[in-house]
């Protein structure tokens, strides 16, 4: 109790949502039974299957993942087949059990909270998923930049979010009619890409290159400290020079409200996601059909072999860092029409990109893209479906982290990580 009758302490407020018209009944009992079935059989599958494979001298590297999914999806039926026949595992063994596992989880949720919008309204689910995909594409593009840097240079850039922030500001000051040059949004995008690319290249060439030339005693720590330093430098320089006032531009193109069937999408996000996809296509073309792109991929696979065939790995490092920074910058430019842009906006983007690339598999480009979209959808659905409406948004990042933890538990290299 608070010593003051009119002062309500936080602990005493647990019931203050009771009058809500949105809260309905919950049935935890049957839902827990279904959940227990999934978890227990998944656990048994995950623990027992690799042992059986190992005892028979078979490749057990995928057995934990496949065993868990088989157990969670089809319970003892599929597990007994796996255990008796011990077939060679490939992705086909995953399709049906993962769908049924998802179905069972959904069933458990629907039993628990039958009045939930995610159970009663298909349109609602679709609009949440499409929102998640739109924002997830941008998460993906940011993360691709980070994973590109990682796969070529072998370092994690802690300044990635700050390049994203810079890109947004570059676009703002190119496009804005009132505070900037008032140029066309496409020029704004190009400027954002150019500025972040140049800063990235200069930074890599002057400060990171000594690391690859063997002039630095502890290259790993050196890279961490240096990119951290760059992050602080960029963020606080932006704060000092550009000020803390939020900036934003109008949507690049006037599309009006976009309605597909029963769902309405905010135009600024659709444009941002469209730009993200365009960037992705151009990047894929660059990596697969140009000499430089092929050289980058060669270096990421084997530095020495690439050097033997005449590719200078040092130059590829510089190019990769510049490209990575540019991808972050372009995403920032795409999102400056969606979010109020402030100098510290990069911090959240940085942490989210780390999660995305670890989830997708360090160094994997498709992994980063799919990881981004998965995080986008999971966060969106998590907030949309979580039974306690009032707390849902506060848990936004938790939903992504749960998926992150589950994936890493079953497949420590991430969704598309290279097999160890």
């Amino acid at each position, binding site marked *: 109790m608070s010593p003051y009758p009119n002062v309500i302490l936080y602990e005493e407020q647990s019931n203050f949502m009771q009058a809500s018209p949105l809260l309905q009944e919950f049935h935890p009992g049957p839902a827990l039974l279904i959940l227990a079935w999934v978890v227990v059989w998944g656990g048994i599958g995950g623990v027992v299957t690799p042992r059986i494979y190992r005892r028979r001298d078979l490749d057990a590297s995928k057995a934990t993942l496949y065993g868990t999914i088989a157990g969670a999806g089809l319970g003892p039926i599929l597990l007994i087949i796996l255990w008796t026949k011990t077939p060679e595992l490939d992705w086909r063994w995953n399709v049906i059990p993962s769908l049924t596992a998802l179905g069972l989880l959904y069933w458990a949720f629907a039993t628990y909270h039958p009045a939930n919008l995610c159970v009663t309204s298909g349109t609602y689910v679709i609009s949440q998923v499409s929102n998640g995909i739109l924002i997830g594409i941008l998460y993906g593009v940011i993360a691709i930049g980070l994973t590109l840097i990682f796969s070529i240079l072998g370092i994690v850039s802690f300044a990635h979010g700050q390049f994203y922030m810079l890109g947004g500001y570059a676009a703002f000051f190119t496009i804005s009619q009132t505070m900037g040059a008032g140029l066309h949004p496409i020029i704004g995008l190009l400027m954002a890409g150019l500025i972040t690319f140049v800063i990235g290249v200069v930074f890599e060439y002057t400060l990171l290159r000594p690391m690859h030339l063997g002039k630095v005693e502890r290259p790993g720590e050196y890279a961490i400290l240096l990119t951290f330093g760059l992050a602080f430098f960029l963020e606080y320089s932006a704060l000092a020079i550009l000020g803390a006032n939020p900036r934003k531009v109008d949507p690049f193109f006037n599309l009006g409200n976009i309605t597909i069937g029963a769902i309405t999408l905010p135009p600024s996000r659709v444009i941002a996601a469209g730009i993200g996809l365009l960037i992705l296509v151009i990047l894929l073309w660059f990596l697969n059909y140009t000499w430089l792109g092929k050289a980058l991929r060669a270096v990421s696979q084997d530095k020495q072999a690439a050097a033997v065939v005449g590719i200078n790995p040092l130059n590829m490092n510089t190019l990769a860092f510049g490209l990575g920074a540019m991808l972050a910058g372009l995403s920032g430019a795409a999102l400056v029409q969606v979010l*109020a842009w402030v100098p510290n906006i990069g911090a959240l983007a940085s942490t989210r990109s780390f999660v995305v690339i670890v989830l997708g598999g360090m160094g994997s480009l498709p992994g980063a893209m799919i990881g981004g979209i998965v995080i986008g959808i999971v966060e969106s659905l998590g907030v949309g479906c979580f039974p306690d409406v009032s707390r849902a948004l506060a848990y936004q990042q938790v939903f992504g982290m749960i998926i992150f933890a589950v994936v890493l538990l079953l497949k420590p290299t991430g969704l598309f990580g290279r097999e160890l």
Partner: protein
Amino acid sequence: MKKYLFWFAVVLMLVMPAVSGAAPLNQGQDYVVQADDWLSKLAEKFLGDPLAYPAITYYTNQKNAEDESYAKISNSDVIEVGWKIYIPTQEEAQAYFSGSVQKVGEGTIKIGALMPLSAPGSVSGGTAMKAAFEIALEEINAAGGVLGQPVELIMVDTEGLPERGTAAMQRLINQDGVVGVVGEYHSAVGLTAKEVAHDNHVPVIFAETWNDNITAVQYPEVFRIAPVSSEVAEVDANFLQSVGAKYVVIMTENTGYGIPAAEQTEARLAERGIESDTYFADLGTLDFAPVIERIKAGPKPDAIWVLLTGETSFNFEQQAAEAGIGPQNLLMICNQAAADSEAFWASVPDGNLCVWRRIGLPQQLWTDATKAFAAKYKEKTGKATPESFAMEAYDSLKLMAQAINEAGSTDPDAIINALENITYNGALGTITFPYGLKNPVPEDMDPKWWHQFPDPAITMVQYTEKGQDAADVTVVFPEKYKTGELIRP
């Protein structure tokens, strides 16, 4: 130099037993320096401790400022025969060493100021407060400072984080030795900072922290000129009742301000038969799409009430507008961050018809002090109207300066006493603190009225055209201040 110090130390050691018998003084006295005197010897003789010599230096210099017949000691190692110096009493020396006498950066009065200057705090709020502090400081020093000495203002960034509030307060009190602290924007910071102020017995005037508990704990050191959260909720609820709302969505932040504010608003709405749902978001949340979708899928609210602060509120308001539940689709009470019209229109271009709550006198009731401050504020920041937190920051510092002057010393009890008796005319109007140590809060009143400015004007105003300046808004509630009718979307 080392050599001198060495001999100094040797002589000190030889002489110590000879003088240690002298009785310490109970009364301060003047003393004329004799041959073979040095300060630590005199300190030992009169104050009983050779290490007490800085107190002699300090008080002699204080006297020198008033009366030139006293010597000015610029280096405690060098005194000349024939100088008139002042030997303080034991009490004075103790006061000097315990820090209750202003001593750091001798010759200035140090006051601390708290404000959020980086995220997740409200940076725009903190920046506005900083500008206001600078104006107040200039005015105070131009008018001769406090107690005849210039004021030095030490501004500390609290980042809107409770733990930073504790650290900032400790730094101001223990490291910088401030005599009083003013400012702060976030309640979460105020709640922790007030504990440090109380433990160290340093008076503090909070500028923009609304949480009831800040004054309700009735610490002698804590004063507030911001409105109290529960009183604001009362005005909010009355406004919603007057527009005939039946169901309201409250969008709030997960903080020491947002949680109780939402709770108080809900309770008051329920008293008036208005149903409500509260959605919580972390301060700094960027993407509101999922929750906006959720609000759209639920029953249609008559109003959305945004209790998020700073840039976070802008993101929500604009994203809601783009999704079709913005201020042009239904009644939206935007966060008072909208008072910074430049930042608001830059981030919420679809924010026309936003209603927001304004603290401080409406323009037609501005005093001369308000007008003078507004003019200086415009010159400094380019903003046509000062935000309420800017006015509060300005008043908190000027108020502290006036209190120290009226107290006639930097003694904390004297300052607290002066604040309890003060009548200060500033940008917010006439500030007084009716209830405190002298006049306790009556049994039948809420304890939150302790050391609380009772009458900050709270009004609801509305933007009526895109890009409008905050100075030109229409006051739509309450009747007393009304300048126009509410435009309903």
